[in-house]
């Protein structure tokens, strides 16, 4: 860093004879250092030498932040999520390819016609990593811990449909009244309202099962539970904060035993360094930094190692529909919408990785409807709408501080300029940003939404239902018709019909133009050739339990 001025050149003249050895010593030291560096231990990824599925090896995977927590009620970001799903199992899981729900610890389930009462049969003989058998009671206790006021879980809202959730959150109840243990292997769950997609929410780590007493003991003694115990394909070994999390194969796994001996999740402070490490052969997979996608793809060695696919997330610029210059000025909103050069953002800034958004619900979500809107960059339309609007001389776009958001904003700004719109950029760091956003202080702002679970509901209800205003609905959008549709959809038990209602709601929302959908996320990763059967899904999860390493 910078420091205070120090003493520097002196001016006293002294005559001295040459002493070559002083120089020699320096040289030796410098050389010594260089040699030491040359001898540096190289830590290459292990490469077993057989063909076909083969057991063994350690998979080294980068995380781009230290997991905030591995305690299920506190697993809130994708990094922790990815680790947690390997340690914990829930009643259901998502299929790695289709993202449809599949059974995990649930043997089978039944649902009442109105989708409010769910009965789960739990697999017998499944054991926790500590040897204890999983019973229905464990699920009840885990969910109750997640919903309890004292736990202050960041993700308990996922269990909000369950009856008794509100009482638990308010600290008025000790038990979830909606969860009943019928016998050791039967669990009956009653919801507050009909919710056919309830099953999907249960794939989230917050709904997974673990020996609750271990968690409670740890929290009591050390404030946090950092030695997670679950039923998953991998067992927890160690967690060195901001360095790595290590998991090892669970030999007693109830399902197919994984091939990998171990997974090392190495924590990186930034994606560029991790990518360099991958190129040096020290990681089995890595995210390609946006700027390097095209060159990586074209690289003869790295090109074939690239994998891409859709991710269930939307990047958008939102308007405040309640106050500020955009609130009652649809023409101005449309001017911005047509002035947003999505194509340039996607192709240049994002290196061609994501797809320009065609609606709110991204592709990959079951029920996705393509081409909900046709809002391509159109300077003439933008100018036209602007001339019909209140014509503010300056519009401010606010975004949270990050190199990526900044580049997108700069590119968007260039597009607006071409369309005659004078847009000023302001970046605010996240802590302040979130708070002011919730207070509705920004008329025009950036946000992204990543699916909690693969469902259209998860994109439409939290972002646009009027009850979520200032909570997730930062557009402060309110439309009675849309509210009604979203509520109706939640009650509809027929999946096809339900998706139609959601699509209808999506169209209605877009007609009001409360946001500029910019792009649907995609992942772009590189995977070493010796890694077999690697799948990265749209939820940002990896099937470590099915991967093997060959030579």
């Amino acid at each position, binding site marked *: 860093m910078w420091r205070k001025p120090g003493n520097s050149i002196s001016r006293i003249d002294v005559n001295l004879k040459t002493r070559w050895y002083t120089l020699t010593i320096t040289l030796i030291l410098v050389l010594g250092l260089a040699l030491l560096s040359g001898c540096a231990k190289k830590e290459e990824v292990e490469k077993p030498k057989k063909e076909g599925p083969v057991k063994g090896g350690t998979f080294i995977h980068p995380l781009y932040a230290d997991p905030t927590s591995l305690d299920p009620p506190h697993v809130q970001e994708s990094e922790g999520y990815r680790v947690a799903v390997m340690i914990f199992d829930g009643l259901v899981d998502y299929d790695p390819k289709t993202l449809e729900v599949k059974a995990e610890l649930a043997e089978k389930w039944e649902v009442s016609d109105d989708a409010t009462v769910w009965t789960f049969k739990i697999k017998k003989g499944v054991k926790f990593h500590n040897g204890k058998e999983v019973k229905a009671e464990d699920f009840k206790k885990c969910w109750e811990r997640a919903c309890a006021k004292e736990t202050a879980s960041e993700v308990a809202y996922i269990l909000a449909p369950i009856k008794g959730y509100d009482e638990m959150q308010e600290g008025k109840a000790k038990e979830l009244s909606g969860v009943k243990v019928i016998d050791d292997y039967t669990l009956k769950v009653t919801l507050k309202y009909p919710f056919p997609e309830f099953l999907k929410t249960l794939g989230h780590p917050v709904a997974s099962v673990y020996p609750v007493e271990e968690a409670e003991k740890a929290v009591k003694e050390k404030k946090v539970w950092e030695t997670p115990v679950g039923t998953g394909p991998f067992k927890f070994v160690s967690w060195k904060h901001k360095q790595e999390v290590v998991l090892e194969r669970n030999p007693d796994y109830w399902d197919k035993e994984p091939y990998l001996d171990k997974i090392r999740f190495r924590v990186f402070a930034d994606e560029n360094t991790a990518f*360099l490490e991958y190129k040096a052969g020290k990681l089995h997979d890595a995210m390609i930094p946006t700027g390097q996608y095209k060159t990586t793809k074209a690289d003869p060695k790295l090109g074939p190692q690239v994998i891409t696919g859709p991710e269930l997330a939307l990047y958008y610029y939102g308007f405040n529909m309640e106050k500020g210059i955009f609130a009652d000025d649809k023409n101005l909103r449309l001017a911005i919408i047509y002035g947003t050069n999505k194509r340039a953002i996607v192709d240049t800034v994002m290196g061609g990785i994501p797809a320009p958004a065609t609606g709110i619900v991204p592709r990959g979500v079951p029920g996705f409807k393509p081409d909900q809107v046709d809002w391509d960059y159109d300077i003439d339309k933008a100018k036209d709408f602007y001339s019909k609007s209140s014509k503010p001389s300056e519009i401010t776009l606010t975004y949270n501080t990050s190199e990526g958001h900044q580049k997108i904003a*700069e590119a968007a*700004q260039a597009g607006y300029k071409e369309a005659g719109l004078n847009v000023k950029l302001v970046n605010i760091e996240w802590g302040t940003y979130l708070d002011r956003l919730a207070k509705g202080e920004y008329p025009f702002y950036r946000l992204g939404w990543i699916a909690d679970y693969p469902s259209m509901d998860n994109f439409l209800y939290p972002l646009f239902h009027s009850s979520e205003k200032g909570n997730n609905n930062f557009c402060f959008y309110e439309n009675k018709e849309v509210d009604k549709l979203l509520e109706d959809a939640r009650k509809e038990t027929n999946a096809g019909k339900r998706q139609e209602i959601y699509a209808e709601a999506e169209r209605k929302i877009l007609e009001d133009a409360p946001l500029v959908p910019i792009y649907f996320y995609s992942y772009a990763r590189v995977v070493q050739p010796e890694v077999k059967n690697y799948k990265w899904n749209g939820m940002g999860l990896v099937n470590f339990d099915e991967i093997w390493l060959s030579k």
Partner: protein
Amino acid sequence: MAQQELEVIEGMDVAEKKVAITPTREIWKRFRRHRMGMAGLIIVFLIVVVAMLAPFIAPYDPLEVKFEDSLKSPSLKHPFGTDLLGRDVLSRIIYGSRVSIQVGVIAVAISLIIGLILGLVAGFFGSWIDVIIMRLVDITYAFPFLLFAIAIMTILGPGFINVFIAIGIINWAWFARVVRGSVLSAREQEYVLAARALGASSTRIMFKHIMPNIVAPVIVGAALNSGYAILAEAALSFLGIGVQPPDPSWGLMLSDARSYISNAPWMTLYPGLAISITVLGFILLGNGIRDAIDPRLKI
């Protein structure tokens, strides 16, 4: 605390060594002979000229986005290449000098003013005022500089002016200490004692007799501190909490360039060189002025 005693070590008790202010011409003559100092002066002069004439010498508009020119390597058309959004790196560096020069001047002026006032007050009035100000200096020194600046930036929010303020606020302590040291020793000089005995007012003594003694270390310190202030701005912008884009700042350009180090190294190379050369210029200039004013002055 520690710093007071250390003045002896770092030789900050300037006036004790009886700085005689040589006439300006004499100083200039000595400075001209100082090769490194001259080099520093030329560098700083050139950068100031570049900053002032930026609109005339920059080949392109530094903010002009041209998607089709994204990440072009250096060529005759774009001597330093282009960045992700197709903006000309050379033009951005030329405009970026404005941010750096302004930080070097304004941020240092802020710390100088705060430091000068508090240093004078502490040194001249002594007693409890001195104790309080010096404790404040100690506290400021005990804060890790960069973290302090980050905290201030999060309060003020990113932006051009706020960077000046943040850097100005964290750097004042150095000036306060040097000024106080000079005042303390000047106070004991015979002519000051004489002026006092003749009933001159405190303010008069301060400005007539003590100020000249402070000028030398302050000028040198300002030149050196400018270099460090420029580094500080670049660091804050690199961390994303400094100057607001799209204002071209060298630190911001470096942070933009990180993702492209392997396919567009020019984006990293040139802004880094620009920072280093500018900072070097200020440091050489500072050293040169010091040697010219008083070779024994150790700052």
